[in-house]
């Protein structure tokens, strides 16, 4: 099969040697074109991601107070990590957060996608409604939920009162608050994963279901034998993206910064928040950088194992 890349190009019609007097083979010219195409992105990644990462990595070996003083301390920051109970606590909080968030997003995203992946009137309205939280700033989301979840007079507790149930301190009880944050995160993100699952669902040929139905398969059998296996590439993408953003606390930071500031009693102090606190509240940039490097290491391990388990996210269907 010929793809558009193989089509005779304008470049090809030029006399060999081209404007710069270079004699390139067709394959070399294509490679050059390809590299030129990735160059802008690669440059951006290098300047805004790779360089800061290297800088952060090396910062971890220094004691930096924020007033211009750099002192080489070797592995002292890493040693401190081992004995810092707050760091251990934040690792544990992150672990619980990830352990709940990733499956919760997978299940809600898929369930919503199945729900709205049908031709019924106004379905577009429902799809948009589920996706809507994503277009709102996370700070606005956090402030809104903060008011809704406040003790006694918040909307949620008022609803509880209406049904004669006791009120809870959703953001003030260390045993509950992390789950409240998780709830808001899922509410915010599920529409995004719904869209991804929908695109996956729409790629599954209708004929498979028709054939299965003729063979007498029920809805559950069709879901487990057709939908789930054929959604594997989508599932891989969803798991990978949600896992990485959960470990890195991409959404959690904004929510926690606004709603709890890591409290009550450090119960929502995720690693990402603790790193922020050490760097920007306590002026311990070196220590924060060391923890950030450790977090990157965790992310690498998680991502590599996911790739290994799923053979790089490539799936073969028979």
């Amino acid at each position, binding site marked *: 099969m010929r793809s558009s890349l193989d089509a005779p190009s304008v470049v090809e019609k030029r006399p060999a040697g081209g404007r710069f007097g270079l004699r390139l083979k067709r394959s070399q010219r294509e490679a050059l074109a390809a590299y030129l195409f990735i160059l802008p992105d690669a440059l951006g990644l290098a300047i805004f991601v790779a360089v800061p990462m290297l800088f952060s990595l090396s910062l971890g070996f220094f004691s930096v107070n924020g007033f211009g003083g750099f002192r080489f301390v070797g592995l002292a920051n890493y040693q401190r990590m081992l004995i810092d109970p*707050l760091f251990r606590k934040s690792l544990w909080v992150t672990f619980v957060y990830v352990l709940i968030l990733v499956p919760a997003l997978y299940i809600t995203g898929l369930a919503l996608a199945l729900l709205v992946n049908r031709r019924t009137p106004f379905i577009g309205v429902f799809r948009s409604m589920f996706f809507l939280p994503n277009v709102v700033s996370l700070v606005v989301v956090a402030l809104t939920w*903060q008011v809704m979840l406040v*003790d006694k*007079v918040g909307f949620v507790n008022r609803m509880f009162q209406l049904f004669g149930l006791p009120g809870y301190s959703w953001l003030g009880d260390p045993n509950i608050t992390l789950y409240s944050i998780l709830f808001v995160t899922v509410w915010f993100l599920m529409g995004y994963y719904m869209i991804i699952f929908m695109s996956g669902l729409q790629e599954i040929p209708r004929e498979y279901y028709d054939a299965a139905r003729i063979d007498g398969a029920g809805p559950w059998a069709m879901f487990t034998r057709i939908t789930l296996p054929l959604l594997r590439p989508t599932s891989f993408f969803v798991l990978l993206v949600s896992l990485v953003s959960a470990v890195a606390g991409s959404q959690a930071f904004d929510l926690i910064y606004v709603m709890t500031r890591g*409290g009550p009693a450090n119960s929502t102090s995720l690693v990402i928040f603790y790193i922020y606190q050490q760097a920007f509240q306590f002026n311990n940039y070196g220590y924060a950088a060391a923890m950030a490097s450790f977090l990157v290491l965790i992310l690498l391990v998680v991502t590599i194992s996911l790739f290994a388990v799923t053979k790089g996210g490539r799936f073969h269907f028979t």
Partner: protein
Amino acid sequence: MELSQYMEDAAKKDFFDNVMETRIVDGKIYGLPMEVEPMAMYYSHKAFSEAKLSEADVPKTWDQLIEVSKKLTKKSQFGCLFETGPGYYQNFTWYPFLWQGGGDIVTPEGNKSAFNSPATVQALKFWQDTIKAGVAPRNELGFGGGDPGANLASGYCAIQNLGIWGVSILRENAKGFEYGVFPCPIPPNGQPKSVLGGWSFVANAKSKDPENAAKFCVWALGSMSDDSIGRVVDWCIKAKSDVSPRKSALEKATELGGYKDGPMKVFKDDVFPTGRGEPRVPPEVYKAVSDAVQACQLGGANPEQQAAEASQNIDSYLAGYSGAPLR
């Protein structure tokens, strides 16, 4: 950058001692305050009258506060409110209760922890008791415990632990809301204490032109000229609602009627004289105190254990500390 080298003696003496104690190292002034913001308690007249309480019921002790708060607690209203969010601000609001019983974070020399004391334990327990009794909330509305409009005026709480800045916030955002102010209640055998907040001017000694920066601070807030004094007066009673950090400015602001009655008078006459500067402690010490307060207030932890643990953390940090003595 030392600022006192550019100040006249009269100007140095013009600043109140309790305001300056945490801004002086080895007799040298490093920060010039533009305002003083003491902490006290605000109460809603409406909430009091609804609960058939009068000014005579204004609590003077911790126990009374909890009892009165029980009467003020309703289905949609808390009796009293103390800051619940972890941070420097929460610590700041908690210090008066620590000091009232004679407690402190560090010893007078400022190099060892003094945190593991009965005064710490009772102060930690007091805040915990307000939560356990169900009279205080575990979180707040608006921008937190420092926001009287969202919490006190809205009816979320009837009494709020708050600083003097609340006067101007209520004046601007809650017109017609009637309230009173009283000093923080004290424990048995305790002394009235408040903490003095407020911002200062400082000059960075490592900046490009530290000398002129320092001179600017002194010109703006710390000279004996009329405009320097007038600036402090305007800032404290016109732009904001604060106590003046300078004797001359306080006198002038009083003459202009800035403290003639109501909450401003209570703050100036009853609260400010019991005040002590906000402690200058490094983040590690702040965090140890904050974790103890949070664990006891909201986590229901054992105050004795938390005081001991925090004290240990403070001491292990101070063992390697070489900066200015803590105050």
